[in-house]
C-alpha cells in the first residue's frame, strides 16, 4: 500500500474517521496510531513486518538497558553496543548483496571463475528510514535530550505510517511533543490543503511527466544524442526534486492530519548558491540528522580546518552509502563531499557575503549556475544503475554517435523552467495560496480542492512511475 493509491486513500480515510474521536484520549490514541501503522506496514508482506517488529522490540530493550544503567561507563558501553547492533542490522539487510557481488566481481577480475557466494538478502521496505529513527532515539536518550518513553509511544514513533517508508525522519522529542499535544485534529487547515495539493501536483503532474524523458536516456544512454542527454539530466534533476518533495509534502500533510507536526523537508533547494546552502534546503530531515549524529560526533568544526573539512567529506560519503548499496551512490556521496569541502574552503577564505547579499549580481548568478550544474551532474551517478552506464551517459554528453534529438521539446523546456522558477517564487506563492484558502468558507474549500484535483487528473500523464525514494 503506497501513497497516491486508492488502497491508501481508503485506508487513510478509515483511520482518520476514528482518529478524530480517539484523539481526546492520549493513551488510546497512541495505541490506535501504532495499530494503524502496523496494519499499514503489514501490507508490504509478512517478512518485512516481522523484521520491523523485531527491530522495534529489540531497540526498546536496548533503550531500556541504556536507561537503567546508572554508571557512565556501563551506560556508554550499553549505548555503543546498541549503536553497533543497529548499524550491523542496516548493513546486513541493505549491503550484503552489494558486498557479496563485489567480492564475486573482484574474484572474477582476478581470474577466479565461478566463485558463487549464493547470498541474497531482501531489504525490508523503509529500513533505512526507520533504522535512522531508532538510532536517533538511542543517541538522544544517551545524550539526555529525550526520556525513555513507554513502549507504545516508542513503537508509534518508529512505525508511524506516514513517515516509515521514506521519511521525513522526525526526531523523537518533536514527535512526542506532538503526540502529547491535546489539540484537536484539524482537517480543513489551509496549510494541510496546500501541502496535499502541492504534493499531488509535483508527483502526479510534473514528476510523472518528466519521468518519460529520463527513463530511456538513463537506461540506454548509448542510443541518445548529446543534447538529449543534457536535457534528460536536467529533467531528472527536476524530477527527483518534484518526486521526493511531492512525497514529503503528502507525508507531512498526512502526519499533520494525524496530529503530528513535522518540519518542512525541502525549502526550494534549486535556488541555492553553493552546496552548503543546497544541503540546508534539500532533504532537510536527513541532512540535519547527518549533521547531528555523524558530523558533530566526528568532531564537527572542532580541532582546526583540516578536521572540519575531513568531517564534512566523511559525512557526505556516509550520505552516499545510506542512499543505496552501489558504487554509484558512493561516487555521488564522494562528489558531494569534495564539492562541499570546496564550498567551505571558498566560504572560509572569502567569506559568504556573496550568498547573503540581497539582489542580483553576476557573482550570485555564476554561483547559482555552478551549483545547479554540479548537483545535476552528480544526479547522473545517482540515477544510473551501474558506473558503466553513468560513464556512457557522461561520455555521450560530450560526444555521441547519435545525432537525432528525440527528447528535446518545448513542453520539456517549459516544465524544467517552471520547476526552477518555482524554486525562486515558490515560498511566496505558497503563502499567497495559503492565505487565499484560509479566507474561504468550508464549502468553497471543498470545491476548490475538488477542482484542483480534477485539474491534476486532467493534466497528469497516463502512467505514474513509482516513488524514487521507496527504493531507499
Amino acid at each position: 500500500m503506497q501513497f497516491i493509491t486508492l488502497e491508501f486513500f481508503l485506508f487513510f480515510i478509515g483511520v482518520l474517521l476514528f482518529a478524530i474521536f480517539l484523539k481526546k484520549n492520549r493513551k488510546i490514541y497512541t495505541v490506535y496510531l501504532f495499530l494503524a501503522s502496523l496494519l499499514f506496514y503489514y501490507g508490504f508482506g509478512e517478512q518485512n513486518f516481522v523484521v520491523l517488529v523485531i527491530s522495534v522490540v529489540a531497540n526498546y530493550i536496548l533503550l531500556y538497558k541504556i536507561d537503567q544503567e546508572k554508571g557512565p561507563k556501563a551506560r556508554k558501553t550499553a549505548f555503543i553496543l546498541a549503536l553497533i547492533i543497529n548499524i550491523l542490522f542496516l548493513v546486513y539487510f541493505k549491503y550484503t548483496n552489494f558486498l557479496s557481488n563485489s567480492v564475486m566481481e573482484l574474484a572474477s577480475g582476478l581470474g577466479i571463475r565461478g566463485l558463487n557466494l549464493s547470498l541474497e538478502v531482501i531489504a525490508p521496505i523503509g529500513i533505512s528510514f526507520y533504522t535512522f529513527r531508532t538510532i536517533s532515539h538511542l543517541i538522544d536518550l544517551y545524550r539526555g535530550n529525550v526520556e525513555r518513553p513507554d513502549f507504545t509511544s516508542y513503537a508509534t514513533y518508529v512505525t508511524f505510517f506516514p513517515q516509515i517508508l521514506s521519511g521525513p525522519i522526525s526526531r523523537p522529542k518533536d514527535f512526542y511533543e506532538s503526540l502529547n499535544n491535546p489539540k484537536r485534529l484539524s482537517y480543513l487547515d489551509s496549510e494541510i490543503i496546500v501541502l496535499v495539493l502541492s504534493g499531488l501536483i509535483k508527483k502526479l503532474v510534473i514528476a510523472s511527466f518528466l519521468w518519460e524523458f529520463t527513463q530511456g536516456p538513463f537506461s540506454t544512454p548509448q542510443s541518445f544524442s548529446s543534447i538529449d542527454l543534457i536535457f534528460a539530466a536536467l529533467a531528472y534533476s527536476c524530477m527527483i526534486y518534484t518526486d521526493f518533495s511531492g512525497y514529503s509534502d503528502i507525508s507531512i500533510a498526512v502526519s499533520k492530519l494525524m496530529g503530528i507536526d513535522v518540519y518542512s523537508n525541502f525549502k526550494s533547494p534549486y535556488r541555492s548558491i553553493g552546496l552548503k546552502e543546497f544541503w540546508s534546503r534539500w532533504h532537510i530531515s536527513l541532512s540535519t540528522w547527518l549533521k547531528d549524529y555523524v558530523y558533530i560526533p566526528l568532531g564537527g568544526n572542532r580541532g582546526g580546518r583540516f578536521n572540519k573539512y575531513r568531517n564534512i567529506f566523511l559525512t557526505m560519503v556516509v550520505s552516499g552509502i545510506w542512499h543505496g548499496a552501489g558504487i554509484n551512490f558512493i561516487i555521488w556521496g564522494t562528489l558531494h563531499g569534495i564539492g562541499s569541502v570546496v564550498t567551505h574552503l571558498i566560504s572560509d577564505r572569502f567569506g559568504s557575503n556573496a550568498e547573503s547579499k540581497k539582489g542580483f549580481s553576476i557573482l550570485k548568478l555564476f554561483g547559482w549556475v555552478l551549483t545547479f550544474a554540479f548537483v545535476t551532474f552528480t544526479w547522473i551517478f545517482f540515477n544510473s544503475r551501474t558506473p558503466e552506464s553513468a560513464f556512457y551517459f557522461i561520455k555521450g554528453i560530450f560526444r555521441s554517435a547519435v545525432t537525432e534529438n528525440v527528447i528535446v521539446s518545448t513542453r520539456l523546456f517549459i516544465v524544467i523552467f517552471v520547476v526552477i522558477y518555482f524554486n525562486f517564487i515558490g515560498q511566496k506563492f505558497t503563502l499567497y495560496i495559503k492565505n487565499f484558502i484560509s479566507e474561504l468558507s468550508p464549502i468553497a474549500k471543498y470545491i476548490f480542492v475538488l477542482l484542483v484535483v480534477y485539474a491534476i487528473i486532467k493534466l497528469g500523464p497516463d502512467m505514474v512511475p513509482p516513488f524514487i525514494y521507496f527504493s531507499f
Partner: protein
Amino acid sequence: MRTRADLKIWVFALVVGLGAILLNFNSIVPKIEAFFPQINHLVESDLYNSFNNLRGTEEDFWDNVKGIDTKKNSDETPVPTANIANTTPNPITTVVPTLSDYNPTNKISAPFKVQIIGDSMILEGFGPQMKIKLLEYDGVSVKDNGRYSTGLNRVDYFDWFKESENLIRVNQPDVLIVMFGANDGQNIVAKDKSIGNLGTDKWKTIYRERVSDYLKLVSDKVGLIYWVGHPIPRTTDFYNKFSVMNPIYEEECAKFTNCRYVDEWARFAVDGKYSPTLADDNGLVQNVKGSDGVHVTVHGGKIMADEVIRVMKMDITMEKE
C-alpha cells in the same frame, strides 16, 4: 471578506474547469485508474464486484481489435485448455515487411529493426539490457516501449493490443520482442463478460485466448516474434502464476510459424530450483533478482538478453560491430 473570497474561488473554479475541459487529453476514467494502479490488486480481492463496472469497456475493446472477428468468437463456448493444445493450428499467412525472404530454415541478415514491448520488465532490468545488447550488433536498430502495471489481462486499464498496433505501424519493426505476465495474475474477464477466477481452468482458457488473439494481431505485421517467458521467480505466489502462464505462451507461440518462445525459466533455474545468483556467459556470478523476486537486476537482465539473442541467432545472422 468572505464574499470576496467566495467570488475568487468561483472565478478560479470556472477558469480551472474550463481549462481542464479544453485540454484535449484522453478520457478521464482511464486517467483516474492510472493514478490508482492498486485497483488491480483490489480486483483480486473480494472487492471485485464493487469494481466490476470498471470493466464496462471490455466488450467495446474487443470490438475494436482489428483483424479479429470478436462477435463470432464471443458467442462460442470457450474450448477447454487441454483440447487447445491438441488442435491443429490454423495456417497463418504472414506479411513480412522487411525480412521478405524469411523462412524458418533460412538465416536472415541485418539490417533489421526491433521493437521491444511489455510491462515493467521492459522498463527495468531486462528491457534496457536487451536494447543495449542488440545495439552492439551491426545494422540493428531498437525501439523499446514498456508500461508499469500493464499486461494482456486488464485491457480495460491499458490496451496493449491497440498500442502494439500503433507501435508497429509507426516503427515498422521486423522483429518483435514481447514480455507480459507479471501483472496478469489476477481474475480475468472473458469476451462474454464472464469472469475467470485466478487459478481456475476457466482463467487459463480465457488467458490463452488473450495470448492467441495478441499473436494473431501482431504475427502478420512483423517478420519474427520472440515471446520471452518468465524466469523462475523467488516467491511461491509468482512461481505458481508463471508456472501456468509460461506454458500458455510457449504453446500458443508454437502455433505461429514466425513466433519463437524464449525459455528464461530454464536459464534461471539451477537443478530446477530458484537460484539467487547466476553466472553470465563470461563466468561472472552476481545476484539476478530484485527485492520482489520477479524483476531482474542489471546482471539478471544481461543473462535474459543473452538468452534471447541466442534464440534470435537461430533465425537471424547477427554480427557484432
